């Protein structure tokens, strides 16, 4: 190493030192410890006891609630992520037509995403209120029928949360909007010459060109959806009711760890969550080779 290289490396390490520390203390060490705790019985108060794979055995074979929470989370993800992305893309496409007042519409669609989640959850608890909520009073005034019980009904509670999740599609929408703006205008002109209508232009030009953005939004959407917590904690007072129909994975993890103080069990759940998210992300990335088109910039 030359003198300059040595000086550079020393400086670089100095500048990066906050995150060098942060990387080990906030990410690497906890990740390892989550694995260690998952092999122990540990309630913070008494010293941990090694129990091997017992926590995993309990989770996978003796705890129907674990499977229920996984099912609920997958159910929610399977609907809220793809439908949410479709809605976000639809709104972005309408906005990209450059109609008058575009900036105002964009602001309106984006606004819900900056509302503190606790506030929006309390608000939606009221919107979805079975007797007096905005949704059911509107349904009754227009159609003259009583709307479903939403959060009070085990069959409607997840659809209610999925519906609520559509209110915050503004984040992916803004990213889609930027992606749409990057599609070269010349491609549309060529399509015009070929006599393509709006539907074929969407199918053969827009959609292939924005697949990288779809991939990005999809991965972020999946990761966030698996960690879905605050909304359901606030709206069910941390209970995941009715009949465990809103006992989501992250909520059950929280309850085991900080309510029952079963940190070992919670750690095993955390590790499984990590593996599920990793598998989903890797799966999407591998499949993306077949459907994502990168156009050289």
């Amino acid at each position, binding site marked *: 190493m030359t003198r300059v*290289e040595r000086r550079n*490396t020393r*400086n670089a*390490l100095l*500048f*990066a030192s*906050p*995150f060098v520390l*942060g*990387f080990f203390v*906030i990410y690497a060490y*906890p*990740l390892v*410890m*989550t694995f260690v*705790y998952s092999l122990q019985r540990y309630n*913070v108060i008494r010293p941990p006891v090694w129990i091997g794979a017992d926590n995993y055995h309990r989770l996978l074979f003796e705890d129907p609630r674990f499977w229920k929470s996984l099912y609920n989370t997958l159910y929610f993800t399977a609907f809220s992520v793809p439908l949410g992305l479709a809605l976000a893309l639809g709104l972005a496409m*309408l*906005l990209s*037509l*450059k*109609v008058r007042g575009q900036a105002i519409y964009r602001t*309106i*669609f984006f*606004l*819900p995403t*900056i*509302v*503190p*989640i*606790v*506030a*929006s959850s*309390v*608000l939606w608890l*009221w*919107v979805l209120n079975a007797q*007096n909520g*905005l949704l059911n009073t*509107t349904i*009754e*005034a227009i159609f*003259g029928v009583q709307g479903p019980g939403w959060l009070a009904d085990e069959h409607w509670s997840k659809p209610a949360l999925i519906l609520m999740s559509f209110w915050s599609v503004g984040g992916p929408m*803004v*990213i889609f909007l930027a*992606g749409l703006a*990057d599609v070269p205008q010349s491609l549309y002109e060529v399509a015009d010459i070929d006599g393509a209508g709006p539907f074929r232009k969407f199918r053969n030009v827009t959609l292939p060109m924005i697949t990288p953005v779809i991939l*990005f939004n999809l991965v972020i959407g999946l990761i966030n959806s698996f*960690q879905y*917590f*605050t909304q359901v*904690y*606030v709206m069910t*007072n*941390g209970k995941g009711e009715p009949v465990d129909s809103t006992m989501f994975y*992250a909520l059950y993890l929280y309850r085991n*760890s900080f309510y029952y103080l079963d*940190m070992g069990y919670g750690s095993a759940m*955390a590790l499984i969550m*990590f593996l599920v998210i990793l598998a989903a992300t890797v799966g999407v990335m591998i499949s993306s080779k077949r459907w994502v088109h990168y156009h050289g910039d």
Partner: protein
Amino acid sequence: MATRPVYRLFAHAMLIAASLLFLAPFAWMVSTSLKHESRIFSKPGEPPQWIPRTDRIDANGNQLVTYQDQTAVNLGRNEDGRYILDLDGSQVSASGEEFVVQQEIELHWENYAEAFRIIDFPRNLRNTLFVCFTVVIGTVLSCSLVAYSFSRIEWPGRDLCFILVLATMMLPYQVMLIPLFVLYKNLGWTGTFKPLIVPAFLGTPFYIFLLRQFFMGIPQDLSAAARIDGCSEFGIYARIIMPLSKPALATTALFMFLFQWGDFLNPLVFLQDDRQYTLALALQQFQSQHESLWGPLMAMSTVITVPVILLFFLTQRTFIQGITLTGLKG
């Protein structure tokens, strides 16, 4: 996209319809926060009431109604179920369909007073602002330093290490949460603001990424010239790069402030005493203890939401640019 007028018209119609749907919950929140208790719960079949109104009454507490374009006083029903109306001193009987109950707009600000009585608003606001500002300072400081190392200094293994930074961004927070809790508990930090604040000074991968992207765009010649003039690395950081990066730093500060303002999981896990609660946690506690006080609950939700909306309107351009910068130009 070239658009024919008919598509434009269609787009407008769709956008207006969607906007109304997106705005409706906000309007409903503010509207409920200003309603009298008796008007919050609607009668069956009655459409949602958007503007808080109450029935007009006279000095004796009787309803005022409009009957044949005149104002009359509703004295109640007689034995056949018809209403007795006092029309300028003369009494007439009318069926329910023949008159309309007069209503007036009435805003019930006492919902806000009630909410402030239930939660210690000044204290919770102070806690929130303290945590928000400290975290913003910590994040801007640490992330800009780290981002500088990853963009303005050449060192072996830099790009490989940067991939590691990006990889940590993908780690779900719940995977680290339990060991962090144990660590903070052993340090005696639980029940203090430290678990919320100290990590911010150690850098956050997302903002390191954002700032690095921005720093990369600043010509390296500027640094080279400063080095020839004998400027130290820290001098280049403090006097050249930081002043040139105000937009990216503002985005970082803004995002972090908004995140911290609304953060729920960390305060829930790490704070113990309600005197330390942040606004988000205080609102959740309020909701869990008074589930049906919808007026004050909506008042509190409005109070927490309005500042971030104002902040958003003041900084909109920074905001949208920041999102697209990080979202796409990776």
